[in-house]
């Protein structure tokens, strides 16, 4: 006597659907779990290593670099004579174009109250050349820094700027902490 393993068509289709559905649910869950646990990485500049060489502006694959100046306001001195805003040989501390260090006038100087001025980065105009960052670092508190903006960056497998960065300031960092911002140490260290 042999076991009767005959399955009728209706049962076969039902069973196939159940198996298919189970596999789809398990697959989706597995994929989601994988996405959640696997860390993704993005390129970012370490402002403590950056030497403002200018290559972020010239070597990004995008027509206008994904690197932009970012202002860490808690470090800023809100100075009248801002080393990041004015050319060293500025004839007066005014917003006249010839006095500005930024080649695209991407920094807005705004009077707050005597003797404080606020400096705001106009990101659409910033080309990531880092001139202001160099001025701020050399003469001020270093509150202006360069960062790769991830809404613009295409996250190349090999970042063209990282390849030519002379100070190895660009590396991959976890996507859940995508920016390296200076700040919050102004009064715990002599900075």
């Amino acid at each position, binding site marked *: 006597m042999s076991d009767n393993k005959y399955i009728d068509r209706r049962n076969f289709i039902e069973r196939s659907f159940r198996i298919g559905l189970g596999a789809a649910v398990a697959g989706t869950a597995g994929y989601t779990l994988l996405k959640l646990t696997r860390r993704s990485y993005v390129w970012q500049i370490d402002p403590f290593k950056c030497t403002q060489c200018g290559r972020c502006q010239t070597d990004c694959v995008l027509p206008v670099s994904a690197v932009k100046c970012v202002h860490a306001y808690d470090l800023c*001195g809100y100075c009248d004579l801002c*080393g990041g805003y004015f050319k*060293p040989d500025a004839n007066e501390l005014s917003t006249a174009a010839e006095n500005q260090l930024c080649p695209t006038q991407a920094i807005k100087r705004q009077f707050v109250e*005597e003797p404080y001025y606020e400096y705001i980065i106009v990101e659409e105009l910033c080309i990531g050349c880092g001139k202001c960052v160099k*001025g701020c670092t050399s*003469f001020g*508190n270093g509150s202006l820094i360069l960062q790769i903006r991830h809404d613009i960056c295409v996250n190349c497998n090999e970042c063209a700027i990282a390849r030519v960065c002379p100070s190895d300031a660009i590396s991959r960092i976890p996507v859940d902490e995508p920016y390296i911002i200076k700040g919050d140490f102004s009064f715990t260290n002599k900075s």
Partner: protein
Amino acid sequence: MMKNKGILIIIAILAMAIVALVFQDIRKSSIEKRSGGDFIYDVEAYKKVSPTLISHKETRQLLLDCSKPGGVFVYNNTIYFTADDELYIIAADGKQKKKLAFHSHINDLAVNDDAIYLLYDNHLEAYSHDKELIFNTEKENEKSVFTSLVLKDGAIFVADAGNKRILRYHTDGNPAGEFEGTGAKGENYGFIISSAYFDMDVNGDNELWIVNTGIHTMQHYSGNGDLKSSWKQTGINIEGFAGCCNPAHFAFLPDGRYITSEKGMVRVKIYDQKGNFESVVAAPEKFMDNGHAPDVAALDNNTILLLDYDKKMLRFFEQLEK
């Protein structure tokens, strides 16, 4: 045959020319030689100082085995300086006389016949010269960052960078008031202190001078906080002070001239009694890029002492012969 030879020679020359061009192109585009184009901000020019402006030469360095130097002070031509939690007492020729250990990092110090006063982040302690505790003050609020300490007319003055004010204590450690500064022309915006640099000193005429770093101004105050006089030097060039917080440190030469020390592009300069730029003690090339301003003091023979936070050294600069 001759014709083929000619063609071969032309091809060989062309091949050599192509190889030379390719080689030159590779050489030009090598990573090391690439620059950021026309958008580089060259601040190197501002680091160069004309040799005619240099008035001192470095004659000695004392390497410090520490993680963070504190402050330097000269009393009776003896050098007192702190590094981490230790106080070093050395003769003017650099020979160590004494080393005393305390409990935590000391930010600054002052010395007189009666005591050694040590400044911590938010309080002050006084010890006898034999290291017996005389008093310690109450801890100020958590925002306090004490950066400088001077003695004048039987009172102790402490600069609090965190709260942008000067605290006054009696010599027994009891509080005796405080004052906030004024602008260069008496404006009421007080001291503009945007980083933990806030220095003061007393000159040979017993005048209390405080640096209002945010407006690049040296200010002379009475013990009650009344502004008596001031001078200001703003500018990125060698004659001026640039940035948000300069001069970060200063001290007086025996004849009342000012020794100033700047952070960022670190440079140490001398200004005369009226605040006119006179000379450069140490150019930026002597220090680390974007470094901390060294604390300064002077010996009786005009030798200038710099406590270098980056290189962790006490550096001696003697005046060049004219």
